[in-house]
């Protein structure tokens, strides 16, 4: 198979994720979009590793997964706390930390 297809798929996924972050207000959805962007990057890493026949990309994908897992823990904890106090998960409403 042509590895370019994987890269194109990764780019499409990344773009969908980025748009999701920019346009959605619900914190959970934004969070999912961020995960999608991370996984798009993972796909690109793995595809590149496969086409060059080296392990560097695979290792990088594992690192990203580990970091993403840690980030999910922290991020979800924050979102839950915000929801508990404000009864809403809208990130536009949580805009008190400003000038």
């Amino acid at each position, binding site marked *: 198979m042509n590895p370019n297809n994987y890269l194109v798929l990764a780019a499409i996924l990344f773009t969908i994720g*980025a748009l999701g*972050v*920019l346009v959605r*207000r619900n914190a959970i959805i*934004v969070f999912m979009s961020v995960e999608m962007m991370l996984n798009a990057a993972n796909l690109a890493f793995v595809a590149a590793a496969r086409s060059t026949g080296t392990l560097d990309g695979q290792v990088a994908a594992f690192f990203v997964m580990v970091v993403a897992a840690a980030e999910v823990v922290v991020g979800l904890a924050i979102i839950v706390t915000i929801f508990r106090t404000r009864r809403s998960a809208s*990130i*536009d409403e*949580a*805009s*008190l*930390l*400003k*000038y």
Partner: protein
Amino acid sequence: MTAALIGLPLFGAATLLLGGRRTNAWGHFFAVAMSASSFFVGIFLFIQMLGRSGEERAVGQYLFDWISVGRFHVPFGLHIDQLSMVFVLLITGVGTLIHVYSIGYMEHDPNRRRFFAYLNLFVAAMLLLVLADNYLLLYVGWEGVGLASYLLISFYQHKPSAAAAGKKAFIVNRVGDVGLSIAVMLMFVTFGTVTFEGVAAGAPQAAPSHVTWIGLALLLAACGKSAQFPLQSWLLDAMEGPTPVSALIHAATMVTAGVYLITRAHAIFDLSSTARTAVVTIGAITLLLGAFIGTAKDDIKKGLAGSTMSQIGYMILAAGLGPAGYVFAIFHLLTHGLFKAGLFLGAGSVMHGMNDDVNMRHYGALRTAMKITYATFGLGYLAIIGVPPFSGFWSKDEIIHAAFGQNIYIGLATLLGAGVTAFYMTRMMAMTFFGEARWEKGIHPHESPATMTAPMLILALGSAFGGLLLVFVGDIEGWLEPIVGIGHSDHAVSNTILIPVTLLVVLVGAGYGWMTYGRRPVPVVAPENVSLLTRAARADAYGDALNEAVFMRPGQYLTRALVWFDSKAIDGTIGGLSAAIGGLSARGRKLQNGYARSYALTMLGGAVLIAFVLLLVRL
């Protein structure tokens, strides 16, 4: 022994100033005793000096190392030689007489103790000035007399005019002092030392331009202290001080410091004809200017002050003639110290009798009311206009003679000065002692007490016989020869012609003065309808106006411009910069709006931009 000369009056000043009111009762006697004992120490040293031969008469006394930094060594050393000796005797002698006079003159003044403390301080500073063995120590004495002069001019500090006059004297003197400090620095740069000996030894090898600049800087210093043109304006105002001060400081001693300085630095002036020419020119201008001012003053003390300027002009001129003139400068300084102190004390005595009125138009016919003052003032008068055999004749004639040897115009200037001197002194004499009485109501002139007349009598004797003594007994030329050398300039005009001519000029001046003020009645109020020249002389030849127009006003404008520049340009730049940064950050702060999505958009935009740039660079 030499240190005791300075130490005694200094101790007197310290006792009176630190002792406070406890010394009120006996303070003035103590001050007189200190000044007199300094005089006796001087006499003792003088007799010791007479016991030695010419070359060995100069004695140094090293006290301690004053400054020792790197190559710069200044000893605190005193040096007494023939030149210092005549000054020591003049300062302590005339100084003691004036101390005695002040006992009577200041009898009713509540601040008499302070006055005597300052007088002692002045004597100590002046002695340090003439006894120092280097220019830096001389500078200390120089500043000391400046301080004492300031304190004494503004002694009647409750009078705004006296306070202003003191400040004026101090500030104008500062201008001259800058000259002296520049000269001292130049000496150190050029010779590596500031001792008299070292400078005299190094001068012949030094660059001529350096020597000339040192000479000109020293001349500036002399102009300040000796009230020479263009720094003459303070002396007339200095008459605000008590009259004994005018006699001691502003006639007999302090103002002659400039003449001492030039004579002491003769090694410099001998080598630079430019500096000598400048000195002679300044002297000639001042002697005519002072005499000119003296002709129109109705204030007896200001008239005498103009005369002092003029006579010191003679001395400066003589000192500028080089070896031919130094001796006569000092000679005239001595005779002038005697007769001018006598004249000032006489003026003080007249004021004392006339209820402190200084306007000569209110005097007249005092010769019967104040016989002793009349006699002593008269002797001083004969001495200053140069009638033989009184003291002024011997010294002034020698200066005129030497001036003709140098240059015919300088000679004519001194001759003209002699004529004008005779005119204004005759005017003063006629207005004060002759004519009809023009006393104001309720004034009863009376002779002054013995403490005042005794010093006047002694000074009158000095005015009468001082010249004779110095020429025939003292041999002033031979006495000073080891210090300043003796020069035989080619005298263009011989004395046999010059003396009669001088006397004729003096007679014409005196005769004109007598015709104008002695024979005709003197108006009580100064006439307003007078010539332009008289107006100029009454206004001190517009010296103050000139200073204001040339120095004071532009100075004020300059400071105002600087203040404006400081507040507008400098403060404006700094203030504007901080305001701009503040405004910018107030706007930049708004970017921090709290919406996570807008931050995300910014990040995405930045990342895209970076990726785009990377792609571009790679391609």
